[in-house]
């Protein structure tokens, strides 16, 4: 076999990614009677979704009877600092409850209220307790339920440990993808009537992140490369509470559920500092606010020994903690030798989520390239400038289903076989195999580590012009060097992680470049994007999204006015909802 030979596989709907969004989309698409093929970068069921802990937000009103889709919509828009795609926020708030109940009918098991309904826990910036959960491993429950459903859905095939390296287009439409199989390094050209991206975020551009190995932003990079628009690339969420110590575990997520269950944040002096930053919502303020508060405490010299804050849940009984936060208990005991029923945790912000993503149509998840769809974290718009906890899992279900149905409908409308653009395939293969021919090129691991340092250093919680310029320059320099990287050592293609990293690096760099370019362009502080040189929001930018596109001269960024929120929904956003009181607990 020549090293550029490939196998060809045809399907109707090609889904890239098998986390919550990809699996939900696959189920939806297959229900339309089409052939669906799911590509999964890891083994099935290992996607980053399994790490979601706290729960999924939906206005079921099981705990707080006053809750409603209106309140959920308003919270989401306010949390996103109004640059959300309001149509997505509206659809999400309207449909989340239905999707959660549907998941239960598919076998998901949630914690219950005394009357036997799905229990809901309070979470940051949600007016009411709204998160359906099972302990602190809700993501795993979602993944297993969808996995069970998926593998028993007729018409669905899953190819595990298969990484897409290039999308293929034919006559301007998405028509498939070029991929390699990790186990043997074999190449596959997938042809499809429609392609759906569900690849998650790009947390791995930072050093300290809660994200798993896979979160290298492949989907945004793939979409960008074939000309699709991205948006809000400056909006990257720091989760306020990641582990800090020991160094080996730095960044691992500490669920917001700890604060939802009453956890208190204190600084080195024992002060409950959130009283100064958000006296009303305290620890349950939105993530951008809490992250910046911890950051400020540390910068002002009131941090913990390892540069964080204390998160204390010891006022709850050990039994309660172990039943409501079992994996947190285990995680701290095993990895940090801290018993959270007796001692406070040490926490600091960690990169967690990309509000940034592929610009999509709200109803269908269609990207700006015909035949291409995106759902879940890879899609932008729903969360605006800051995502609320719990809105991600419900996002996966609501928009996974919608995008899956739309991709299937489009595929059904275009039953004619697609052709493969051989030049695209040849170019993709050449680029993929190049690093293997350069055993002494620069190490992709080192380049990735350098990129992580650049993002960590120049695009931190609080950014400023000079640093962003320096960061962008370094990213561009890394892009140059990455073109000459080599895998080092033996150049076999069978499960060769050095080679895999050389490819991942390309995705990471596109995401990083977009981040710096947009962050420079948004001269204000809004949600997750905070600038020391522009410390206040600029009202004129409230309805503006930054759109990133590939152009002749490289990556271009332009401001696009967001569609205005209709009057009746503006009313809902400005209305103040009566806050939840504990007496409402069922």
């Amino acid at each position, binding site marked *: 076999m020549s090293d550029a030979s490939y196998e060809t596989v045809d399907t109707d709907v090609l889904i890239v990614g098998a986390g919550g969004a990809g699996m939900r989309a696959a189920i939806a698409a297959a229900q339309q009677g089409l052939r669906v093929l799911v590509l999964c970068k890891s083994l099935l069921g290992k996607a980053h979704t399994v790490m979601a802990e706290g729960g999924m937000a939906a206005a079921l009103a099981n705990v707080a009877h006053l809750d409603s889709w209106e309140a959920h919509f308003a919270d989401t828009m306010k949390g996103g600092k109004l640059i959300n795609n309001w149509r997505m926020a509206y659809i999400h708030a309207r449909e989340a409850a239905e999707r959660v109940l549907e998941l239960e009918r598919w076998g998901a098991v949630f914690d219950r209220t005394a009357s*036997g309904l799905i229990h809901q826990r309070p979470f940051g910036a949600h007016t009411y307790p709204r998160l359906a959960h099972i302990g602190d491993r809700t993501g795993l429950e979602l993944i297993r339920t969808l996995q069970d459903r998926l593998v028993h859905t007729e018409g669905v095939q899953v190819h595990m440990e298969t990484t897409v390296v290039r999308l293929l287009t034919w006559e301007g439409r998405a028509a498939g993808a070029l991929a390699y199989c990790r186990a043997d390094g074999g190449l596959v050209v997938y042809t499809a009537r429609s392609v759906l991206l569900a690849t998650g975020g790009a947390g791995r551009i930072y050093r300290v992140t809660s994200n798993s190995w896979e979160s290298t932003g492949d989907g945004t990079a793939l979409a960008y490369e074939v000309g699709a628009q991205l948006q809000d690339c400056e909006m990257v969420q720091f989760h306020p509470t990641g582990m800090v110590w020991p160094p080996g575990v730095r960044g691992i997520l500490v669920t917001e559920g700890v604060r939802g269950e009453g956890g208190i944040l204190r600084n080195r002096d024992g002060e409950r500092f959130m009283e100064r930053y958000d006296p009303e919502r305290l620890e349950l303020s939105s993530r951008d606010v809490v992250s910046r508060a911890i950051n400020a405490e540390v910068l002002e010299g009131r941090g913990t020994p390892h540069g964080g804050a204390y998160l204390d849940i010891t006022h709850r009984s050990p039994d309660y903690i172990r039943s409501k936060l079992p994996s947190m208990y285990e995680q701290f005991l095993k990895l940090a030798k801290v018993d959270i029923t007796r001692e406070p945790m040490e926490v600091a912000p960690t990169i967690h989520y990309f509000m940034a993503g592929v610009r999509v149509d709200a109803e269908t998840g269609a990207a700006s390239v015909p035949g291409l769809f995106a759902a879940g974290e890879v899609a932008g718009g729903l969360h605006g400038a800051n995502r609320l906890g719990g809105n991600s899992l419900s996002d996966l279900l609501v928009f996974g289903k919608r995008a899956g149905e739309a991709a299937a409908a489009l595929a059904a409308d275009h039953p004619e076989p697609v052709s493969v653009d051989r030049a695209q395939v040849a170019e993709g293969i050449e680029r993929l195999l190049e690093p293997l021919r350069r055993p002494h090129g620069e190490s992709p691991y080192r380049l990735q580590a350098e990129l992580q340092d650049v993002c960590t250093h120049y695009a931190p919680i609080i950014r400023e012009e000079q640093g962003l310029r320096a960061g962008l320059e370094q990213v561009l320099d890394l892009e140059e060097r990455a073109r000459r990287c080599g895998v080092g050592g033996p150049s076999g293609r069978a499960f060769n992680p050095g080679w895999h990293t050389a490819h991942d690096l390309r995705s990471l760099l596109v995401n990083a470049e977009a981040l710096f370019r947009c962050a420079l362009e948004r001269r204000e502080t809004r949600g997750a994007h905070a600038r020391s040189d522009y410390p206040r929001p600029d009202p004129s930018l409230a309805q503006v999204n930054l759109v990133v596109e590939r152009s002749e001269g490289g990556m271009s960024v332009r401001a696009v006015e967001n569609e205005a929120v209709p009057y009746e929904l503006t009313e809902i956003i400005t209305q103040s909802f009566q806050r939840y009181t504990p007496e409402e607990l069922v």
Partner: protein
Amino acid sequence: MTVSSIDVSIFRGDATRGELVTYAVPVREGMVVLDAVLWIQANFAPDLAVRWNCKAAKCGSCSAEINGFPRLMCKSPVTDYGSRLTVRPMRAFPIIRDLVTDVSWNYEVDRRIPPFTPSVRDMEDPEPWRLQQQDVERVAEFRKCIECFLCQDVCHVLRDHHRQDAFFGPRLMVRIAGLEMHPKDAVDRRPLLKGEAGVGMCNVTKCCTEVCPEHIHITDNAIIPLKERMADQYFDPFRWAARRLRGR
């Protein structure tokens, strides 16, 4: 005791041949075996094959045998092993390369288990289901499984006797238990248990329970109750007699 450096011997090779290669790794505070492996990969052996995802003991990808014990590498501090340790791939599965094994068999078996299926009445019930927390907690234990397959790796039936043809293994017993004990599931999986799933093959040595990183009581809470369900149905003399009398 603080160690400044540790010798990590790793199996390098494939299904046809391989050997242990030793690397000296500088130890950082809180370092786990997976950190050591990734450090080796980044600095000495870029092609060192290892499977991992979350590095937080939530995905169950980085299973291996550390000094012969099946463990998650992300959850095993290097300081537990003194100045040297050995990492090998799981033995019950075919090796792909280095520490990576072919675990696809587990996924194939999983597909043969009838999925969650509620009764028609429950399915058509327009009202949200009501369940008790107690019932939820009973199945929650089984649903904690992160599919690391360490239990499959250590099970004698699979590891030593290679009876993949006769027994689904502990992971899939946990899967079946999670479905069978789901308060709303209405499928009878006892014929499966007696037949191809082979619950009778388990001889209750509890090795699987010992290695479970999620502390699921695999033998006591999943396999033994499943054995009882199956035995009640097929081997209880009174039920046997009753079936004969009713002509079924």
